[in-house]
């Protein structure tokens, strides 16, 4: 039996989300990076299961936060505590991969056992989706500081960095 969660029932369509990478997996995904059809980055985070469902949280995050998480500058706990929208989605996925019981939840209302430890720094290898664009994987996995330095260098030689970012965003969605 899953925990009862305080939140608001909502309808939310996850069907057009595209998987970019499983950031943590063990015999299946546990933490995955997805992009919405609008190009927004989301984390899908497994929290609990029972005999019928697996429960996940989804939260919108910035690409820079994701990069900082991958490069161990931010913990998973910090990402979960501060989703971009101020709230998270909580939903159950059954054995036929139907999504149901979608709730809008505030981080403060999450049960304590849904929270990562404060020292939950990334110590895994991302597994890119087969069909994820290489550029997006590159954006995700290159350490944040190196990425910033690369952008600085590109800007100095007059490379249109913003165009590159748009291309990456586009590549992630289509």
């Amino acid at each position, binding site marked *: 039996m899953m925990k009862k969660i305080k939140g608001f029932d909502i309808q939310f369509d996850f069907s057009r989300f595209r*998987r970019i990478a499983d950031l*943590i997996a*063990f*015999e*299946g*995904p*546990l*933490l*995955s990076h997805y992009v919405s059809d609008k190009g927004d980055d989301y984390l*899908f985070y*497994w*929290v*609990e*299961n029972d*005999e*019928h*469902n*697996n429960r*996940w949280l989804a939260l919108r995050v910035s690409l820079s936060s994701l990069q900082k998480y991958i490069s161990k500058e931010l913990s*998973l706990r910090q990402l979960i505590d501060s989703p971009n929208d101020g709230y998270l989605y909580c939903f159950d*996925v*059954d*054995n036929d*991969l139907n999504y149901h019981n979608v709730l809008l939840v505030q981080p403060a209302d999450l049960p*304590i*056992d*849904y*929270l*990562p*430890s*404060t*020292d*939950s720094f990334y*110590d*895994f*290898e991302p597994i890119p*989706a*087969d*069909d994820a664009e290489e550029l997006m994987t590159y954006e995700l996995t290159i350490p944040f500081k190196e990425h910033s330095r690369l952008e600085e260098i590109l800007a100095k030689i007059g490379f249109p960095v913003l165009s590159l970012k748009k291309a990456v965003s586009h590549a992630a969605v289509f």
Partner: protein
Amino acid sequence: MQMTKFKYQNEIDALVAFGCQLPELYAPNGIPACRFAFSNSGRQNHVPQYVASPKRMLLDIGKNKASTSLLALSCFDTAVHAETFYQNLKKAFHNISSAIGDSLSEGSLTDADGKKTATSANGHFDFYEYEGCDLNKTFLITKDLNNNDEEDKRI
């Protein structure tokens, strides 16, 4: 000569039809291996995620390429590697024991059991069982992985 079939050959064939490929596989040569398992006898051990219920998956495999890895059993080459990985998972997922098990189990993998992928730097490899293989008969639970004195850093 008849080829030995994998335990989940039909499912593997279905995924291959979707465009997935089996990774390069090797004979295990009787190596020792560690897996996570449930100490509660009511839970099924040594079952790949793709055939577990409920599946811990997010996507319809028909729409998105899945990996044949979901039909393999995750193993580690040493108990130290397995425990390190488990404790890292525990920091991120408090309820991880209900998903992958609460205990370490150890055994060895023979060439008659199946084939393995290459071992990665963290000691992990996938094991594809042959028909008739049942690790419940050869792997024994050796340690409770939730019984440690580390301070809970969730608060």
